[in-house]
């Protein structure tokens, strides 16, 4: 019998918080509602998803909106998550990652009065983008151009390297920008290019990344840029072993190998998310393709207290000048 008493006691104990808290306004909250569905990787990936989250958090603080998010447990839940948010109070819904493309298209057609935004939307020329979908893409080639220029200005061996993940159009953009940037400041530079593979596995193969880097280093490369997900961890390891510099990608990767990361080509997903929310609130949300480049602050390179001592001021001056020229349209960066 005493066991029952304990049970009852616990039940009552648990009811206390429900009586004491949250009598307030859930219903009265009339602020505009936005929501975000994470990729299966979810929060805490220190890259893409977290960056999107930071953008929304900033919007929440500064623009006075309410915000909820869903982390789907499995692939098939993405559509369901979007649908559930769309049928609720949320007016603007984000999906993070190219895998959302199909699902956002389907759901957007069923909810024409809701707005959707997909980060890294993969555009299919045969399928139109629904009018209430904002397809956010980044001009990775522009950021890569700048880090390419930094690498070319700083190399002592006149040889730099590039390590790509999967051999596919999205990664070719990084390569093209990097090559163009390096050749722009030094037409005679030698750029070594390697890819880790032809499948999705190529983005999570640090051993392969290290192997490619070591072979590039043995051919004289002293700065290597990677665009290869966690394969890049192998690139950093090679850089640390052989005491050369590596360049990070997507977010500031300084902490992966402090002292050996020259800079990182960052993709500011948070900026894109914040701006989209801002547009939505102003009523100026427009569907269709929107690209974030240097001009929009969507891409860039890292220069802060960590790598200030690694990059000379003259190099930075030159790169800032190039940046200005790209923004003004005086340099066209190729994407293939």
């Amino acid at each position, binding site marked *: 019998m005493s066991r029952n008493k304990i049970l009852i006691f*616990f*039940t009552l104990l*648990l*009811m206390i*918080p*429900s009586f004491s*808290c*949250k009598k307030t306004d859930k219903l009265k909250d009339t602020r505009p509602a936005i*929501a975000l569905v994470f990729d299966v990787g*979810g929060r805490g990936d220190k890259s893409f998803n977290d960056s999107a989250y930071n953008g929304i958090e900033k919007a929440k603080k500064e623009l006075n909106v309410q915000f*909820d*998010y*869903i*982390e*789907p*447990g*499995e*692939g*098939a*839940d993405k*559509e*369901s*998550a979007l*649908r*559930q948010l769309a*049928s609720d109070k949320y007016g603007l819904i984000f999906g993070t990652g190219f895998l959302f493309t199909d699902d956002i298209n389907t*759901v957007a057609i*069923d909810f024409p009065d809701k707005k959707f935004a997909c980060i890294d939307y*993969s555009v299919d020329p045969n399928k139109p983008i629904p009018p209430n979908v904002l397809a956010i893409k980044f001009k990775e080639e522009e950021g890569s151009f700048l880090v390419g220029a930094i690498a070319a200005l700083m190399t002592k061996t006149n040889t730099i390297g590039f390590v790509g993940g999967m051999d*596919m*159009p999205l990664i070719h953009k990084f390569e093209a920008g990097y090559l163009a940037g390096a050749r722009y400041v030094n037409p005679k530079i030698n750029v070594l290019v390697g890819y880790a593979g*032809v*499948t*999705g596995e190529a983005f999570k193969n640090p051993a392969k990344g290290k192997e490619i880097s070591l072979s590039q280093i043995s051919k004289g490369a002293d700065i290597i840029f990677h665009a290869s997900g966690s394969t890049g961890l192998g690139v950093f390891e090679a850089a640390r072993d052989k005491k050369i510099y590596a360049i990070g990608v997507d977010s500031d990767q300084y902490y992966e190998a402090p002292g050996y990361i020259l800079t990182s080509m960052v993709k500011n997903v948070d900026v894109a998310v914040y701006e989209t929310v801002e547009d939505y609130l102003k009523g100026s949300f427009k569907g269709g393709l929107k690209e974030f480049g240097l001009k929009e602050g969507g891409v860039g390179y890292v220069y802060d207290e960590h790598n200030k001592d690694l990059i000379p001021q003259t190099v930075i001056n030159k790169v800032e000048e190039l940046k200005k020229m790209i923004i003004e349209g005086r340099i066209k960066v190729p994407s293939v």
Partner: protein
Amino acid sequence: MKLPLWLKEFFIQVSITLLSILISFIVGAVFIVIAGANPIEVYLKLFEGIFLNPYGLAQMIFKATPLIIAGLSIALGFRAGLFNIGSEGQIIVGGFLCAYVGFTFTNLNSFVLIPLCLIAAFVGGAIWAGIPAILRVKTGAHEVITTIMMNFIAMALTNYFITYHFHLPETVHTQSISSSAFLGRLDHFITAFKGSPANMSFVIAILLCVICWWVISKTPYGYETRAVGFNPNAAKTAGININRNLFTTFLISGGLSGLASINFIMGYKHYFEEGFSQGVGFMAIAVALVGQNNPFGIIFSALLFGALSHGTLVINALVPKDIIQILEALVIFFVISSNIFAKKYLSRIRD
């Protein structure tokens, strides 16, 4: 009040299950409080999102469908004393074969192609179960080990086929199967289900439950299977060919697992995608246990798991995903352990 015994047992069974779900929710509330949310609010939203909302109901059905079929597969094995842990691999191979037939024979009409795809899914699963079945019958190799290993081989093999032969550029899935192999969505008949991919596979799953129940309880084969599972030595003495029965049961169990793939392939996305099975084969073990290896019990337990699985999304805005996974695990834990009490109690009232 004089109730018939079976009805009384049924009520007791159901109330014990409901009680254990309730207890798991109470324990789960502790974790919800730790996560800083209000448990009452979370549970209300959970209930509302699943049961008071047609879309939620449809999603529950959609999620439950493969669990019913794979649960049957596991339960059939259990009945014969077989521990088929390879359901996941059998789903993958069955699904691959089903999709392959679906996008290869595109000129056939629905009346031919749908049965053909179903047969392909069944055969795929049966082949994958056949290898451990032969090993078990011929060499006595334990099926728990062999079927687990076959899971990895199935994943690696289909990944290889997808990445090097069948994938569409920049994706990890095959081309779409012929539209005459599509299974209709339930929202054609029930408009309130609109948007949910719940499809005719659910009807097939229910039919399979009825067939399985009939086979197990009304046919000589079913009798033999139960005898083998209950006491192999006695069955042998009674003149039952144990090895033949185990082999057949293993193949049917594998075939059923293979059929669990149709919900995704013929009903939802219409292609084979790397990793589409999402652990259904493992979850099905819990479904079979909670459903006490009874075909109709499995329908209910699969619906429960389907509801929880959809519920994770419903309340995800309030609490982190991990908390909901804890809740799911608690439900499994309490329901399965309550079955032990239920058995004891039931045997007492029977005496």
